[in-house]
């Protein structure tokens, strides 16, 4: 069994045909992993941008309500309403 494995390895190294195939297989896994990672980062950045927009809207709504009514009674309610 061991000799068979060694013999196969020697033949595989000596034979120049099909050398690109295993290299490509390894590269493909790396490439797909990086592609998936970049997609995840992209989606995270989109979520962050949405969250920032909603936070801005909530803050401005609360500030506007305080400005218009001169009380802070409803500020948190307005912030909640405009946060999504």
């Amino acid at each position, binding site marked *: 069994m061991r000799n068979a494995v060694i013999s196969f390895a020697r033949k595989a190294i000596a*034979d*120049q*045909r*099909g*050398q*690109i*195939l295993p290299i*490509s297989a390894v*590269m*493909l896994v790396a*490439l*797909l992993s*990086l*592609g998936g990672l*970049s*997609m995840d980062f*992209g*989606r995270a*950045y*989109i979520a962050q*941008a*949405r969250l*920032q*927009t*909603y936070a*801005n*809207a909530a803050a*401005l*709504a609360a500030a*506007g*309500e305080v*400005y*218009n009514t001169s009380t802070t009674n409803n500020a948190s309610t*307005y912030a909640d309403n*405009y946060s999504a």
Partner: protein
Amino acid sequence: MKTDCGLRKPANSLAHRLRRLFHLGADDGNALVEMALVLPVFLAFVTGIGSFAIALGNQITLIQATGSGGQYLQQLRPGNSGGTTDPCKDTLTAIENAAPNLAPGSIGLTLTMNGNTPIKATSCSGKQTQLVEGATVTVATTYPCTLSVYGVKFANSCQLSAQVTEYEY
């Protein structure tokens, strides 16, 4: 004549003539041929990732520009300084200015002011009367995207969208 892979080929075949011409051995150039087979697949992945990256970048820009447009609209009420007579046009201009890398004519805008019927237009002259202090204004935008590799599209219709609701000052 017997080749390395055990197949018989005529000595005057194109492969043999090319080998003789360039003084090549039986295995020479294998990597080149295999690379030529694999490279289009790799390039498809890379250009696909690039295509998605452009769409994701445009989506982030659209979200931020829509937020800017909403903040602009919330202060445009008649009576405030800089009051508008065409909220759709002014808001769209604000969004286009906030997103210089997006094609201005391709941004679609829908405004909903104080719970009235949504207005999907680039101009809505006279509709500033719907802007009421303390009421809500919703700004929704769309932008087309193209997800393709080698000119082949992943999806027939791809549209980015963003929406924000603001308090009218």
